[in-house]
């Protein structure tokens, strides 16, 4: 690598992004859908509770948003650090 310092900063920014996104990924699937479901049982959604909705639909919608947001954020980081193709 001819520009190690720039690509190091790029990699650190990428890792930070991944960490934040994985927290959201975890909370919206394993969290709301499984572990925290009992705590959300008071919030009703169409004949059942919010946890059920997250487990069967909400998590998938969040996953979709996460991937496109990650792709957009990385395109921006690629340009900022001059490592785009």
């Amino acid at each position: 690598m001819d520009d190690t310092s720039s690509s190091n900063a790029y990699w650190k920014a990428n890792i930070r992004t991944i960490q934040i996104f994985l927290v959201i990924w975890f909370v919206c699937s394993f969290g709301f859908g499984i572990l925290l479901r009992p705590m959300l049982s008071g919030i009703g959604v169409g004949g059942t509770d919010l946890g059920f909705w997250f487990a069967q639909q909400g998590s998938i919608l969040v996953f979709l948003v996460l991937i496109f947001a990650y792709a957009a954020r990385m395109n921006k980081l690629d340009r900022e650090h001059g490592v785009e193709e």
Partner: protein
Amino acid sequence: MDQFTLNLLVVGATFALYIGIAIWARAGSTAEFYAAGRGVHPVMNGMATGADWMSAASFISMAGIIAFGGFNTSAYLMGWTGGYVLLAMLLAPYLRKFGKFTVPEFIGDRFYSQTARTVAVVCLIIASVTYVIGQMTGVGVAFSRFLEVSNETGLFIGAAIVFMYAVVGGMKGITYTQVAQYVVLIVAYTIPAIFISLELTGNPIPGLGLFSQTQSGQPLLTELNGLLVDLGFSNYTEQTDTTLNMFLFTLSLMIGTAGLPHVIVRFFTVPSVADARVSAGWALVFIALLYLTAPAVGAMARLNLINTVYPQGVAEAPLAYEARPDWVKNWEQTGLLKFDDKNGDGLIQYVADDAANEFTVNRDIITLANPEIANLPGWVIALVAAGGLAAALSTAAGLLMAISSAVSHDLIKSQINPSISEKGELLSARIAMAVAIAVATWLGLNPPGFAAQTVALAFGLAASSIFPALMMGIFSKRINNTGAVAGMLSGLIVTLIYIFLHKGWFFVAGTASFSDADPLLLSVKSTSFGAVGALINFVVAFVVSGMTKETPQEIQDLVESIRVPKGAGAAVDH
């Protein structure tokens, strides 16, 4: 026109389309054969990935699994979609930048070890072969139900079609056929679901219908819960599995999904790193169209089933066997739906108690019987037949591609005859593909004991060996050859032993010491163990790498270079 002719016409038309695409998309070089020349548009690749990923299990079985499992089966919904987030952030872009052809090739190069590469090839072949048998039997079932041919004939026709476009077109032919197959399967899945949702809830979008009110004025899920409890079943929306097992099962499916080689290689076909990232998003869009519909189909099918058996409500007498609708008669012939008049009153008792229940419905018929249950026109039934075949064939082709490239590229080119010419390698890839199809067909005709263990075996191996190796190879420079091999082997072996302890040694009946109902570790079923195997892999790899020699400089440079997108274009012509 009778139903048989209609089925023949619709299925025949889709097959003609696949063959037409195969002739158009012939592969002329190894880059085209292995990676479709790396010129596939990310949206197209997303669609192809959708078809590649959604197998006979997703199309035919999943709605039924959900219908009879309720909330617990959310693990499949989250697991088989959440893996794409991991793929998009942790694997796909970097592996695309690496710019080679197969998953074992990355593992071999990054860990500078033929042993690591061979372990990856073995895992890939076991996982893919297990998976492909399920697709081949699915093809046989769909043919025999809808085209009135024997299971064997159906299998041979299916194999011949795959042979045509996979051997001639390689990844290029498979990619564009998968795009067509995606369209067929999603249309076939959605149309009956829309009709059923409209009929039950008045909402044309099944995913919203699931949370809407039925004509009775109650929310659909409340009504379903009430009926099930009256019949002695547990609440549909209640968790009956343990939280620990559900958590680990979901996690195993997620990391298994991200580690399945036939899915990963699809991201080698796009032109750039940025395309690989966004293409994972498009793949999930196309997958979500089915996965957001499936839970609605499941719940609605269960409700329709109860309403069919108890036309005046569950408090009144059930339907007389003599008065059963035509779809029940049709499916009785397949043996997948059974009535056993235990109390001899001629009525169909459908209750939770096994001793009193007289009506057994195989969960695999839910999707296929849906159009008949909802009284939809004949062309919809024909379309569902074509959709089931598209789902099975597209996944089979993707798996066969992964198997044949592992054999021709990772074994023949890399270990047996490194001086082979490109033309020679292309020929050997085609021969490997033809042999793989023949083996898969034979295994489809004579399914071995492990064929039914796709979830435990394929996802278990991908989760415990392939995913951690790939992730550590990208995110850590410290993991060396010894650490990676030790990690992969320990993850793999412990997972296999756990599966064997519960399913029998090499799946031989009667040799199991534990059962999934009463497992060895707490409540962890053998299907949920992949995540534990992955953890073992990570820990062993780090500990062993820490005690052995550091990775050489050129490998550290390789890791640096795959972390940045710049320069991926050059890899196209490698």
